[in-house]
């Protein structure tokens, strides 16, 4: 039987964990105290590097390496916490912010200490009023206890943390768009180079890390890199939060060690299979931006690298399941609607292409297209993918292409029904 390994969510069920006293009871802020008293900033980075921690926002970039990109200049530096959790299917960061916000605050302070930042912003999506309130309450308490602000714990290290609400735009979860938005603008992604670690907020070096990533940092510094890397498997160390949603009997957010079971085992044992008892038809294993896996592909080992080898990705840890009562065309269309609505409109291929793809899929759904239009759809995806400012284009090109290719027969059959009708 698959069992959860609860680290970040260990005390999530305890309402007291939201308070400073409750958090401290379980060892809270001891990692920070230790780092500030006994460790140099570089040593904090080294510990994180050693732990094998990879970003939990979707791209999976090694966190320690990201920190190391920050130039050692006298310029002001910033941490921007990406709490704009908007990838369809994803609701894990919310669990941390609402149930155990101090571990995020502690992790943020540790990251700030490591790179030399004195100001941090937690960019929380506007649709998360509960998370915003929980974080603000926790920050008030932490500030009152001298854990945030000037001269933290008498160490001489000063760092402010502010909650910054978004206002409803998926693109702001893209790290450079988040920065543009945070500066008070329309959330347009930026051209790279320069990368945020060199030129981020107000042209200063800025590290953008996901909520879950920074929460892991707290536990790494509390219990050590080797403890963390002993969890999970190579390439997917530690525990990860997974949101299982859609057609499963037990939808929920689970904290798991990767590499110990297959995707199918996960869906059947923890997910409990489909509520209807019908067979699973497809799974999006890492949010809607990732290629779909069919029922035949579910025996893949559940870790970053194995899922990547199977042609998809763990992405943001959102596993969406649908059974065979659902039309693949409908799912693909729903996904394309999302991305065409959320395209920021800055660059040509995504602005024009996301809408065209949606229209083509809608025409397929209404059976107003022919099979050659499906070929056209694939060709248009080729013209868009890889040619845009940010990854939002890939985020609809990959899943849509995977649906057309893997459920090609169904697409054709769906279109043929017109001929026979």
């Amino acid at each position, binding site marked *: 039987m698959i069992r959860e390994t609860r680290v970040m969510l260990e005390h999530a069920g305890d309402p007291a964990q939201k308070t400073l006293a409750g958090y401290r009871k379980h060892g809270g802020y001891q990692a920070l105290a230790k780092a500030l008293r006994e460790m140099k900033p570089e040593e904090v980075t080294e510990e994180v590097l050693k732990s094998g921690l990879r970003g939990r926002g979707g791209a999976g970039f090694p966190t320690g390496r990201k920190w190391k990109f920050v130039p050692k200049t006298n310029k002001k530096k910033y941490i921007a916490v990406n709490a704009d959790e908007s990838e369809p299917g994803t609701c894990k960061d919310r669990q941390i912010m609402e149930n155990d916000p101090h571990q995020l605050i502690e992790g943020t302070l540790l990251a700030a200490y490591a790179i030399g930042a004195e100001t941090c912003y937690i960019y929380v999506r506007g649709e998360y009023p509960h998370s915003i309130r929980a974080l603000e309450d926790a920050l008030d308490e932490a500030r009152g206890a001298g854990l945030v602000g000037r001269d933290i714990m008498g160490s001489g290290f000063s760092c402010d943390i502010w909650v910054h609400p978004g*206002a*409803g735009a998926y693109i702001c979860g893209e790290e450079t768009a988040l920065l543009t938005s945070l*500066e*008070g603008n329309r959330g347009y992604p930026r051209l790279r180079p320069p990368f945020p670690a060199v030129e981020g907020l107000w042209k200063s070096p800025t590290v953008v890390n996901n909520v879950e990533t920074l929460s892991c940092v707290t536990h790494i510094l509390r219990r050590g890199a080797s403890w963390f890397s002993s969890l999970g498997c190579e390439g997917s160390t530690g525990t990860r939060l997974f949101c299982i949603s*859609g057609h499963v009997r037990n939808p929920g957010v689970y904290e798991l060690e990767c590499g110990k079971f297959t995707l199918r085992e996960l869906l059947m044992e923890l997910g409990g299979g489909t509520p209807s008892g019908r067979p699973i038809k497809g799974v999006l294993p890492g949010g809607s931006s990732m290629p779909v896996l069919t029922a035949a592909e579910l025996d893949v080992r559940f870790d970053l690298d194995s899922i990547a080898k199977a042609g998809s990705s763990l992405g943001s840890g959102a596993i969406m399941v649908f059974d065979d009562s659902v039309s693949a065309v409908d799912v693909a269309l729903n996904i394309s609607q999302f991305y065409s609505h959320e395209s920021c409109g800055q660059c040509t291929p995504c602005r024009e292409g996301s809408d065209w793809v949606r229209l083509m899929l809608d025409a397929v759904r209404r059976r107003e297209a022919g099979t050659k239009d499906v070929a056209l759809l694939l060709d248009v995806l080729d013209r868009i993918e890889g040619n845009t400012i940010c990854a939002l284009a890939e985020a609809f090109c990959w899943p849509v292409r995977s649906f057309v290719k893997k459920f090609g027969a169904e697409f054709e059959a769906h279109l043929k029904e017109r001929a026979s009708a």
Partner: protein
Amino acid sequence: MADFSPELLAKVKDLWKRYPERKAALLPAMHLIQKERGGWFSPETIRDTAELFEVPDIHVQGIVGFYDMFHDEPVGRHVVRLCKTLSCKLRGADELRAHIKRTFGVDHGETTKDGAFTFRCFECLGHCTTAPMMLVDEERHENLTAEKVDRVLGGLR
């Protein structure tokens, strides 16, 4: 300065202290402003906000047009946001939308005749494991059924 309440102005001034540039406080401040100005940004509110922040009015307008949570048209006393994205769709969001239309006479973007609420279908609201869900102003309602929707939305009238 534009005709905002002293409480709001005090909060905005507090926000300004958090950033090296005032402009950065626009999003948090605009949430407060929208609430104070009846839930939407009229051309006048856009001008007042621009004046307060010393930015061109089109900058504020561009932000209203970009972010889904800011409205450029009047709204009802409450704003109801029903999630329509995949996890909610798989759990019956489309049926709930149809149900709301039948029961309350409003579809996406419309306000009930009595002005009780404006209904909007929203892209993923991040409650996928408790789908389908909706936000009524700042309160969330999860694992929705038609009966639950009737109860919650009926209570807004």
